[in-house]
């Protein structure tokens, strides 16, 4: 069973969307597996000024996506990189068993977006 917090985040996700002039983009997953997460970041003065996502996937994929973007927004690049899977899960009130595989996708996508940003700059 999913926590109240997961259902709440899943039904009212924040930061859904695309940043057209993103400084970094990270995509994780494949339609074969059934979860695809793309995270877009806008960086200004080493701070994640904006973070948005598009997610095709399950309840965990969507709720972790919105939580990761909320946790990362306003943080410095270093602080964002320090966000752990546990931080995300704690913020969501824990995840049910058997969902480990896709629970880290959103964070991976954020990290990939940061990598993309660093490669560009």
């Amino acid at each position, binding site marked *: 069973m999913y926590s109240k917090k997961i259902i709440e985040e899943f039904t009212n996700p924040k930061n859904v969307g695309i940043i057209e002039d993103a400084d970094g983009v990270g995509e994780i997953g494949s339609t074969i597996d*059934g*979860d695809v997460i793309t995270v877009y970041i806008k960086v200004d003065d080493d701070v994640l000024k904006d973070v948005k996502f598009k997610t095709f996937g399950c309840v965990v994929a969507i709720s972790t996506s919105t939580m990761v973007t909320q946790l990362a927004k306003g943080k410095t690049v270093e602080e964002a990189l320090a966000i752990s899977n546990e931080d995300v899960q704690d913020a969501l009130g824990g995840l049910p068993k058997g969902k480990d595989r896709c629970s880290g996708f959103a964070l991976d996508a954020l990290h990939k977006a940061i990598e993309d940003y660093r490669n560009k700059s």
Partner: protein
Amino acid sequence: MMDIMKRIYMDHSATTPVDPRVVDAMLPYFTEKFGNSSSLHSFGQEAAEALSMARGHVADSIGAREEEIIFTSGGTESDNLALQGVLSREPGKRQHIITSVLEHPAVLSTCDFLKSIGHDVTYVPVSSEGIVDVGDIERAIRDDTVIISIMHANNEIGTIQPIEEIAKIAKDNDVYLHTDAVQSVGKIPVDVDQLGVDMLSISSHKLHGPKGVGALYVREGTSLTPVIFGGGHESGLRPGTENIAGIVGFAKASSIAKERLGTDPARMGRLRDALIKKVFNTIDDVRLNGHATQRLPNNANLSFRHVEGESMLMLLDIAGIAVSTGSACSSRSQHASHVLDSIGLDPDYIHGSIRISLGRENTMDEVDYLAEALQETVAKLRQISSPVEC
């Protein structure tokens, strides 16, 4: 508009509510008529009488004879008894089974076990509409083939298999034919002679009876051994003191289902077709999985591009509607459903499938409400998923 707090159940392929008349029929067998049917005294006689009556009713619902009904704990056990019961007649001898890729895990996992002890299994494929090719079955028959097990109707996509034709092949080749009719009994007419099967599995909880009870029809003359051992109950094929209350309930449910066959299938078919039409009229990029006509009247299995099944299920649940999904992201299971895999569903669609299985109590208002909720759900999830801004 629908009362928001009312919950709508559209997952009747998973299980059904027990009919209140069934509950009434069962109740005396817990408290007053609690006897053991093997006892000689009047308490035992009451139980034995109830058992015999129930056996008659279940037999009658599928055109069988009383002696041909073996009560079990449900569909899973019936499938196990049919397959294992035939193969264990000759312990140590390697034998061959023919089944399909579409079967329920109750058959597929039993086949896995039988393979692990040295037997051989051929899994015939299905068409993109989810129907087996009778020619494939005929070609798979070998000298050591002892049983063919093909389900009557599929639990996910509702497709109905050509059992009568398969029965001819089985007969010509002197091979037993078993069918898992767990999803079809009560939904469409099922007659063991018309189908021509040697064995047929039924489960009570799919037809508004209690859970944990079912039957295996075993045609007279079929040679079968038990897979569990004990007393001589159920012609020695299924030892253990009978679940009389459950069996009485199952029998009552079977009789009611049979009575309702004249009206229920047509009514559910109308609701189902109205639903499909509404969905196709209001939502883009949607597919109906399975066969257009060779399918259960209460089943609609729909796939939507760019949405994921579990997410859809949860949003519909929040809207008060219970459906199920055969597709899950790879976290929950290795793959999307083996059934959707077997019909070669496009990867863009395979994770976005939901199964709507209607029941007697569903109404056109509920179907309208579902169609609206689906439209909102899909739009919402596509807004989250779509790589282009909506």
